[in-house]
């Protein structure tokens, strides 16, 4: 790294990324800097709207743009592809006191981000030969590979109904309002079936089971924690393309331990 240039670049980045424009005594200020700051705000609003159209509809255009600008200054992008920016919006929403009147908003944002990410996930053809391991190895020694981009969202709110009402017009908003009032919980599996992104409602047991698999548990561990009918589930998962392969778990793994990463959003 060139220290002199790094110092210069940090100074300009600071003038752009700090929430308030620099004052008149700062090395960078004026209409040129204003043009870059305005451009950044436009990028932030557009990028976040692309990933979160339902959150935008729920909070309204101006409030959403303000949210996008605030997130930009709080947690700016790390990558040079703006479609990768915005993962932290759900937790950022939770910290906004003025959005507390929409308690289902963070989970709705989680679901939208999962949908956005699934559409951008890589392709993974089914490894049909690997399924033979199911015949020869104990479930405790096997991990299932689910389609790239698969996420389980578990929510105490009817988040799938909220999303579907906005994106597809079904159910109607009166039904969604009733489910919100009644506190209907919904679990959703977001996954890719070929090129199509699917949002599949699943019950609590299946949500726990699939979350355990996504969290790195072996098949045996996941079944032990949440007994389901493995034959029926596997048959459907392989047929539909949800499960794309089986891999042996590394030797010496502590199958009683915690999963290596959080199993759900």
């Amino acid at each position, binding site marked *: 790294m060139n220290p*002199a240039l790094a110092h210069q*670049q*940090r100074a300009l980045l600071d003038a752009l990324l700090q929430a308030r424009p620099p004052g008149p005594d700062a090395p960078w200020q004026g*209409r040129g800097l204003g043009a870059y700051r305005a451009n950044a705000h436009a990028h932030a609003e557009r990028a976040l709207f692309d990933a979160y159209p339902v959150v935008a509809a729920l909070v309204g255009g101006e409030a959403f743009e303000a949210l996008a600008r605030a997130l930009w200054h709080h947690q700016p992008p790390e990558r*040079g592809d703006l479609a990768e920016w915005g993962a932290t919006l759900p937790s950022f929403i939770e910290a906004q006191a003025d959005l507390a009147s929409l308690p289902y908003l963070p989970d709705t944002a989680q679901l939208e981000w999962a949908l956005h990410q699934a559409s951008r996930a890589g*392709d993974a053809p089914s490894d049909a030969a690997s399924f033979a391991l199911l015949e020869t190895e104990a479930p405790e020694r096997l991990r299932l590979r689910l389609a790239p981009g698969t996420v389980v969202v578990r929510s105490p709110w009817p988040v799938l109904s909220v999303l579907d009402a906005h994106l597809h017009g079904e159910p109607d908003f009166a039904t969604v309002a009733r489910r919100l009032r009644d506190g209907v919980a919904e679990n959703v599996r977001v996954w890719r079936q070929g090129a199509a992104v699917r949002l599949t409602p699943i019950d609590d047991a299946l949500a726990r089971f699939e979350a355990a698999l996504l969290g790195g548990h072996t098949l045996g561990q996941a079944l032990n924690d949440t007994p389901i009918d493995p034959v029926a589930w596997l048959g459907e998962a392989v047929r539909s393309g949800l499960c794309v392969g089986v891999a042996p778990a590394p030797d010496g793994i502590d199958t009683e331990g915690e999963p290596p990463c959080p199993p759900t959003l």
Partner: protein
Amino acid sequence: MPAPPTHDADAPEVGIGWRAPHQRALLDQRPALDFIEVHAENFFAPNAATRAPLLKARESYDLSLHGVGLSLGSAEGIDPWHLDRLATLVAETAPRFISEHASFARGAWQGHTVHAADLLPLPFTHEALDVLCANVQRVQERLRRPIAVENLSAYLSWPEADFDEAGFLTELSRRSGCHLLVDVNNLVVNALNDQRAGRIDAPLPAVRRWLDAVPPDCVSELHLAGHHDRGDLVIDDHGSRVPLDVWRAYRHAIARFGAVPTLIEWDTDIPALDVLLEEAATARDLATDARNARAAETLA
């Protein structure tokens, strides 16, 4: 897919930026164009569904992958994640042209490496040139081919300078082996803003001096676009037809550099495809005139 209708095979090469509103129209109409340009990052998602339209268009057109996020001038270096995605896209789409900007966006801020998602200007210093050359070479080694690097429209300038912009970019090309992509509109925008700031008297002579300072053998491509005059500042918004001053500067550029491949860019308030094709036809006419004039000079 049949090839697009062809024009005079010897005519100068002209392309257009292919953006989402024209995704269907281009594939349906397949107008006579020499190449299409896309922003590389829009096709970074590593799945077939994202890339299918690009590969479909690739059957009929040469492709220019134009990056906007590689941050070639960053003192923090190139983001390996970004270069991996670009290299994969290049391998899958075999573009004829690959280009990026002489800019930075990536750097340290509050203990993190961030990306400001813009084309921020570099100081024209020896230090910045060293960094830019090293980063360009890293990209070229990974892609195993030279890239073209574009001059910016810049709304800020650094007080420190060891070169003027043309000298800085020429040195970049000489040292790294990269080509230069000369954005004629950016030159006009910068000159108009320099005029408003009292730094120069007239924009077009300044643009011509810039063009005359760059060796023709460094230049592989030209960009043309419209800009927006908001009064206090001229903004390079790519949102209108190519203005007369940019066409005048373009004539000077092709008289000097030859009829190098030329792109019409239009990124905001995108009009019907036919409007872009009209602009492309104008560029082709001017470039043809320039080529004929050079041929006549040679004969004389």
